Structures are given as C-alpha cells and as structure tokens.
C-alpha cells in the first residue's frame, strides 16, 4: 500500500469577489502533507447560470484568476476541483458557491482589439481606441510562470521599455522577449487626463508560436550542369535564434519558365542553406522560389521572390566545337609534318648509304687492291728527317724527350712539321744514331 497512490485529493478553498461585471477568484491548494509540491495542481472550474436548463461550462484556471465572459446582473454558481494531470488524478469539488455579477462601469473606454504581430522575432502590439480622447497608453507585461504561483501577481506587472506614456496605438516589445524563455502576458493601460486608468484584456504571447517566419533570400548561380541555390535564412541578425529553436528546413520550388505555361513545378526539401539542381536542359530559363518552414512548430514562411536564371545554351556550344576542331587540326598537322620530316630524313640516309648517287672517278677505281704499294705514300726515311737535335748541351732528360718524340713521329706516315730539320741535318743525323743505340 502506497499512501500517495491511494490518497484522495481534497477540495480546495476559494475566495470570490464580484466587481465591475467580472468574478475574481482566488484558490488555496488542498491541505495535506502528502502533496509535497502544491504547484503540481491544476484547477478545474465548473460554472453555470443559476437558472433552469443552464449549461455547465468547464475551464482550467490559475490559482488567482478572473472570469469575465459573464452577463451583468446575473447570478452564477461555481465549484472548483484540484487535479494532478500527470497522475490523472482528480480531487473532490469544493462546495458550490453562488455570486451575482455587477454592472460593468466604463467611464473610460479601454483599448480594444489588442493583438500581436510578430515577424522574424520582432514583436509588435497593436490596439484600437474608438474614442479618440486625450489619452496616453502604458503597455505592461507579465512573465507567464507568475500566474502558476499562489502569490498575488497583480503587483508584478512591469512596463515595457519605450512604451510608457505613449499616444501611438502600437508598441514594439521585442526587447522584453528573451530568446525562448517561456511565454508572457501583455496588456494596455489607458490613462486619461484625470489620471483614471483602465486595463485592457490580456494577450498571451508564446514567442516561438506567435512569431511568424519571414521568407528567406535567394541567390542563384549556374555552372555547366548544376544550378546552385544559395539561401540566406530569414531574420538577418536575429536569424540565429530562429535557426536554433525552429530547426528550420527549406522548401525549394523550381520550374522551366517557357512560353508554354504547362511546365511541371518540381519541389525539393533541404535542411542546409545550399541546394543544387541537376538534370538541366541547356538554353532554358529556370525560375526558383524558396520557403522556410519548421516541422516541429508547424509553421512556414511565405515564398521568397522568384529568381530566374538561364542555363548556358547553343551560343557557346558551337564556339567550343570550333575551338576543339581547330586545336585538333593544328595538332594533327604538327604530328603529320614531323612524321613526314622524319621519314624523309630516314629515306635520305638509307639512300645515301646503300644507293649512293656519286660514283668515284674511273682512275681511282683500280687502285683498290694496290693501296699499300703506291709510290706516293711517305716512307720511313722521311720520318727520320722530321727528328732533329736542336741543342746538344741540354741534359739527358731533354734528349730522351726528343728521342721519344722521334719514335712517335716515325710511326706516323705524315709530316707533322713540328720539328724543322732544314738548317743542320748532317751532323745531327750521326749523333742521333749513336745516342739511339745507347738507349736501346
């Protein structure tokens, strides 16, 4: 047995106040140590007109609340129960209480039609005032959670900065909306010259739900076969908040813009801010428009402006073909020329070697076999004449050098002309021969 599970929620205590055509209600939570967290309770009010065949109306109310959709000068009966929604537990109803509504007194007409317009996290409050008297407005806001507490929140309304004592019937309250920290209530207090004030109805603002997403910006870029779509998220500088919390995706619509308006519109959904489209027909005008949407919040923006771009077509293609052809032609010509040149050279060489065009003279032809007995070839005697001793006083080394040279020159069949022997031939011959014998 778990006491918490078995225990029944007792009836709450209620205080009623009937003023100015409305019923103000204040609820105290059921007493029990079991309910460690009295903030878990949600209160269910049942109200009906104290007449026959009255319709029962059931609504969820806060611990301190106002019921004001009532007819004046009428008796209403009501009862309240506390519930714990998570446990699907419903408590006992409080005893039935009946109260009569008063007449509505309106010496000053309050602001009416209080409504919120929000685009890309910029929030504006608009209202009307039918009687354009000398009045000033004071816009106030309350943080949502304060209504959940059992404390009196009527003193916790704060003024919206730059919307105090204004005469304009609109207010920009973006400054109080901080990211997504919960929801807010807003109301307009009208003050006349006699310092009499009147409070308008409240409006609940849940930032991410109330806000509307604006259209994104689109830029198109085209390469040969791909269309690139660059999407700028909506909201500009505030787009970070929207991107973070809405988890934005983008829906791209694209179609061929031709005279025949029956072209199929294609759709693509992406999460990134760059999309690509392939399978493009050349020389065609493609048009694109993009919409941002949030699946979680079931919200979508308007479509962006249509952007169109033409795919590259026939104008460029022939040029490409011509350029390719000419390049190929030149290349082929070069190769062919080189080949012809090489072949020609080869042919010449072969012809020269194997089939010479010049014939040697007739008188030379017979000399082929008698080459070595020709009287015109030089003899060894001549060689000896090449050598000459220039200086007899010079040391042995020098002489040796000379003799070596002489030996070399003997072997050659030509007259080198390095050593002249015209001047002193006879003497040198004799001494040379004797020295030669010594060395050997």
């Amino acid at each position, binding site marked *: 047995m778990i006491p918490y599970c078995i225990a029944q929620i007792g009836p709450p205590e209620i205080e009623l106040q009937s003023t100015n055509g409305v019923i103000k209600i204040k609820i105290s939570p059921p007493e029990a140590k079991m309910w460690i967290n009295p903030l878990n309770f949600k209160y269910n009010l049942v109200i009906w007109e104290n007449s026959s065949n009255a319709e029962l109306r059931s609504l969820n109310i806060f611990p301190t609340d106002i019921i004001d959709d009532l007819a004046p000068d009428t008796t209403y009966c009501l009862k309240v129960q506390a519930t714990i929604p998570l446990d699907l537990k419903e408590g006992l109803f409080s005893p039935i209480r009946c109260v009569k509504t008063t007449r509505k007194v309106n010496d000053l007409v309050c602001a009416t039609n209080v409504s919120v317009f929000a685009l890309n996290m910029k929030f504006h409050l608009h209202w009307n005032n039918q009687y354009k008297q000398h009045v000033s407005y004071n816009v106030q806001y309350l943080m949502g959670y304060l209504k959940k507490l059992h404390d009196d929140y009527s003193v916790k309304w704060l003024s919206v900065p730059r919307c105090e004592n204004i005469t304009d019937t609109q207010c920009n309250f973006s400054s109080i909306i901080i990211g997504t*920290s*919960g929801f807010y209530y807003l109301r307009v207090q009208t003050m006349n010259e006699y310092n009499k004030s009147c409070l308008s109805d409240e409006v609940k603002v849940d930032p991410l739900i109330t806000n509307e997403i604006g259209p994104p910006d689109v830029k198109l870029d085209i390469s040969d076969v791909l269309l690139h779509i660059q999407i700028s998220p909506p909201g500009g500088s505030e787009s970070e908040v929207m991107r973070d919390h809405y988890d934005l995706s983008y829906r791209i619509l694209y179609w061929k813009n031709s005279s025949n308006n029956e072209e199929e519109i294609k759709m693509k959904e992406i999460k990134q801010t760059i999309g690509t489209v392939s399978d493009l027909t050349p020389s065609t005008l493609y048009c694109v428009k993009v919409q941002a949407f949030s699946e979680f919040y079931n919200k979508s923006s308007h479509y962006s402006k249509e952007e169109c771009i033409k795919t590259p077509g026939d104008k460029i293609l022939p040029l490409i073909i011509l350029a390719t052809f000419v390049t190929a032609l030149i290349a082929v010509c070069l190769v062919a020329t080189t080949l012809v040149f090489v072949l020609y050279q080869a042919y010449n060489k072969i012809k020269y070697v194997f089939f010479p065009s010049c014939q040697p003279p007739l008188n030379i032809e017979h000399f082929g076999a008698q080459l070595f007995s020709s009287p015109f070839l030089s003899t060894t005697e001549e060689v000896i004449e090449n050598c000459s001793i220039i200086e007899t006083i010079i040391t042995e080394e020098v002489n040796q050098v000379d003799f070596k040279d002489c030996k070399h020159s003997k072997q050659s069949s030509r007259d080198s002309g390095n050593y002249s022997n015209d001047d002193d031939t006879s003497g040198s011959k004799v001494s040379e021969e004797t020295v030669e014998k010594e060395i050997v």
Partner: protein
Amino acid sequence: MNALGLTQIGLILLCTTTISSLQCNHLPLQQRKVIKKSLQLLDKMGKNFPRQCLREKMSFRFPEQVLKPRQKEIVKVTIEEIFQHIFYIFSKNLTLAAWDGTALEQFQNGLYQQIEQLEACIIKKQTHYFQSKEVNRLKLKKYFQKIDCFLKDKQHNLCSWEISRAEMRRCLQLIDKVIRKLNN
C-alpha cells in the same frame, strides 16, 4: 456574451490548445534546448560557489535509477516531474540568495513553459504511465523533499541556496546525459 468575452475564454484555454498543436515527437529535442538554457541561467544567476559554504555541504544522493527505465515515455514523464520539483524549489523565498533576478525569472519561465508542453502532450496521449515503478517516483519525491527540508532548516540562507543550486545543476546535467542517450 460579447466578442471580448470569447477572446477571454480563448485566452484562458490558450494554455492547452496552443501547446497541443505542437508535435510531441520533437519534445526530446526541445527538452535538450531547455536544459542547456537552464544550465546557462543557473550559472549566470550567481557567482562561484562560496568557500565558506563548503563545510555545510550535504550529500542528497539523487536516485539515478529513476532515469534508467527502458521505455522512453516513462523517462519523459519522470523528467517532467523533476522539472516540476525544481520549479517548486526555486519559487521559494530567494531574497537571502541575492541572485540575479532576471536570470532567475528566465530560468523559472523557461522551466514552466516546458512543464506545460510536456503535460499537454501526456494528457493528449491519455495513457497510464505509472502502473509500474511507483517506488521510483516516491524516491524522487523523497529526494526533493530532503532539499526542501534542508532549505527550511537553514532558513533559506545564502549557503543553503548555493548548495541547492549546485545540486540542481548536477541534476540537470544528469538529465541532459540521459536525453542524449535516448536520442541516439
């Protein structure tokens, strides 16, 4: 009944109707964002943990097994309950804590919105999640009651608040880990 009256009814009922228009499948993602924001605000609320409060530090022992059940739905509901408890704790007398009022308000407001959204989703689905593991829920209640009693005993002084704040940080970080595991 005039048009204004109807809008007033609409206003009162707005709580449940607008929230139920959200898809409940995306709630874990939303929960993670709320926890991340709440942790940031908890840090922003006050300064570093004061040294003089170290000797008063208490071990509350959060019952980690409550976040371990295999069914995602049960964990979702448990997290909602924890948010409700934290919301309740921070609605007490905070004057001695001397924290940044704006950060505290945003913290409470964010938690409250998340609680409402979760409640609407759970009510919508109308299933009984608590046929098992009642014992776990009671352990959770006991844990938060311990913190509540601790605060009352110390008359909500600065040290008791700082210790509670540190404990709530730990709690939220644990929940964040669990949600991350659930999503993967």
